[in-house]
């Protein structure tokens, strides 16, 4: 590939209109594979979750996993799709060892779910992304390319294949062309992937973890001159594996394709690879040599005809979906768009809601999760939800603060203890003796002890040097481990020594 001239983004958008298309693969979180009873645990030892069916051995017969079909129908319904009355699986034939059968069971011209949409918001404006189809297929094995200069596939001497992933239920969601997004195209692409991830997570059928590959995006981009009616030639950037990368891949392709077109060239219809390090895309397989998959109806699996009753049962089982939930929560908590967005991005929405349900005030719940606990999660490089503290713990700490038995400073120490595994908030309070000392009698006796232990300083205060009382206040705070009200302690010390 010759050196490419990029056109600065704003300049490219001044002359060209992008058209996008996004294909997303989502692994379902079923206990077993799509067509056999092998477990689907992530990270298992190689080739420990395989059987004659998913290894494509002669005579093995696939049987469809009912939970997977329920999962895809739920996704289809959440995306406002129609669920077809009858459809079949198809064999997609290709020569590559990531499927030992030499074909992948997929769906071709009869997808299970069709014609839906997902609304996404960018800078306060709503874009409706239309969904062409949602179909069911199986994931492929994982190849490890050994030898060669870089370990990349070209130049590899041989490949080692692990089929644990082969046959895991995979849902593919294909958008219709996304038009008229102008310079917002990269953000719309990212917002779509974000919203889709939230939606599927809410439906509860996948953990949608892009870093583990349970959600992967292929991004199609083409450019046409502004005002043109005919779309340009598109490229497909494969396996874009983070939300940020989705945005960057679209942006880069716009700049690159504008450069090709400006120079009088033609965009080649091809598969491209996203380079995480540079934020660029590089040329992959050209579509001229694209594979001819020779699809035909899968003879080993009978057709699916989901009854309308079943579909309606599944529709009724859907939880509140993210868009509706955000509107409700915003109304209940009275938070601004920006704060809500921060909460969603921090993965704190569930946690805060559960904390409120456990009795905390929304403002207090937001404060602890978004400030104190978010900071600690960041320090540890951990997800907020993975901290060893529960919404019930946070609600209890909030209650202790609200009733005045601890203050914010002590609350932080309570969280220290809970996070260190010292027990519940009440147990930490007990073990560490964390109580605001508001009892005047108790505070008075601590002051008496401090005065007795520091006769010289006490004399100075008696002699009129009120500033010297500071040292005694410090000693009181130390003796009470920060639990005394410093201002009140000072008043009491001066009162005792000068009256």
């Amino acid at each position: 590939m010759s050196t490419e001239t990029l056109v600065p983004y704003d300049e490219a958008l001044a002359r060209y209109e992008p058209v996008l298309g996004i294909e997303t693969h989502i692994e379902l979180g079923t206990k077993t594979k799509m067509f056999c009873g092998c477990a689907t645990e992530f990270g298992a030892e190689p080739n420990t979750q395989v059987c004659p069916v998913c290894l494509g051995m002669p005579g093995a017969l696939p049987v469809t996993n009912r939970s997977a079909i329920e999962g895809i129908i739920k996704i289809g319904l959440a995306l406002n799709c129609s669920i077809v009355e009858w459809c079949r699986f198809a064999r997609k034939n290709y020569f590559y060892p990531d499927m030992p059968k030499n074909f992948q069971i997929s769906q071709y011209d009869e997808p299970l779910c069709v014609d839906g949409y997902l609304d996404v918001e960018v800078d306060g404006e709503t874009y409706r992304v239309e969904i062409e189809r949602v179909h069911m297929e199986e994931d492929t094995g994982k190849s490890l390319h050994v030898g060669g200069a870089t370990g990349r596939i070209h130049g590899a001497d041989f490949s080692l294949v692990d089929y644990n992933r082969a046959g895991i239920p995979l849902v593919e969601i294909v958008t219709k062309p996304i038009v008229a997004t102008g310079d917002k195209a990269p953000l719309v692409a990212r917002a779509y992937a974000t919203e889709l991830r939230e939606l599927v997570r809410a439906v509860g059928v996948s953990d949608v973890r892009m870093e583990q590959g349970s959600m992967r995006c292929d991004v199609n981009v083409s450019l046409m001159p502004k005002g043109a009616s005919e779309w340009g030639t598109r490229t497909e950037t494969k396996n874009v594996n983070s939300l940020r990368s989705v945005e960057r891949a679209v942006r880069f392709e716009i700049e690159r394709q504008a450069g090709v077109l400006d120079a009088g060239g033609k965009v080649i219809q091809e598969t491209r690879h996203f380079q995480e390090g540079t934020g660029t895309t590089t040329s992959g397989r050209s579509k001229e040599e694209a594979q001819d998959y020779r699809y035909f109806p899968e003879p080993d699996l009978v057709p699916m005809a989901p009854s309308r009753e079943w579909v309606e049962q599944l529709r009724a089982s859907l939880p509140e979906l993210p868009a509706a939930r955000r509107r409700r929560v915003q109304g209940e908590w009275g938070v601004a768009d920006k704060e809500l967005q921060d909460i969603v991005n921090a993965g704190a929405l569930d946690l805060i809601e559960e904390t409120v349900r456990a009795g905390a005030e929304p403002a207090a719940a937001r404060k602890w999760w978004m400030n104190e606990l978010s900071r600690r999660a960041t320090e540890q490089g951990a997800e907020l939800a993975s901290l060893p503290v529960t919404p019930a713990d946070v609600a209890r700490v909030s209650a202790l603060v609200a009733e005045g038995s601890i203050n914010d400073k002590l609350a932080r120490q309570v969280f220290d203890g809970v996070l260190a595994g010292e027990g519940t908030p009440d147990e930490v309070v007990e073990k560490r003796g964390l109580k605001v000392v508001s009892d005047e009698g108790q505070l008075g006796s601590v002051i008496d002890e401090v005065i007795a232990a520091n006769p010289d300083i006490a004399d100075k205060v008696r002699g009129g040097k009120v500033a010297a009382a500071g040292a005694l206040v410090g000693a009181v705070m130390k003796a009470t481990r920060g639990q005394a009200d410093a201002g009140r302690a000072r008043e009491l010390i001066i009162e005792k020594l000068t009256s």
Partner: protein
Amino acid sequence: MLNEHAAHGSAAAGQARGGGAITRDEVAHLARLSRLALREDELDHLATQLDDIISAVARVQEVAAEDIPPTSHALPLTNVFRADEVRPSLTPDQALSGAPAADEQRFKVPRILDEEA
């Protein structure tokens, strides 16, 4: 992309149907997709044979009336599902026992110059 493959597939099917036959070029293309190294004389031979077979099968279309839907399955069944319950897998040794080569508990295959599907 699906549409493209749809176009490709129907074009090939159209040719096959149109002449009631398959061309030598199409046989060569299929052999390439299947990674079969066919000699020229084998291509000639197979193209003629496949042409005969497809022509013979195509005669079914002559008797299939408009009101008979295409059949993909012999059994009048739909919705055969199983519960999402884990069943024992093979051991890695069993899984790899038929593999021509294995390394690091994985199937070892020759290097592949093509891209992943």
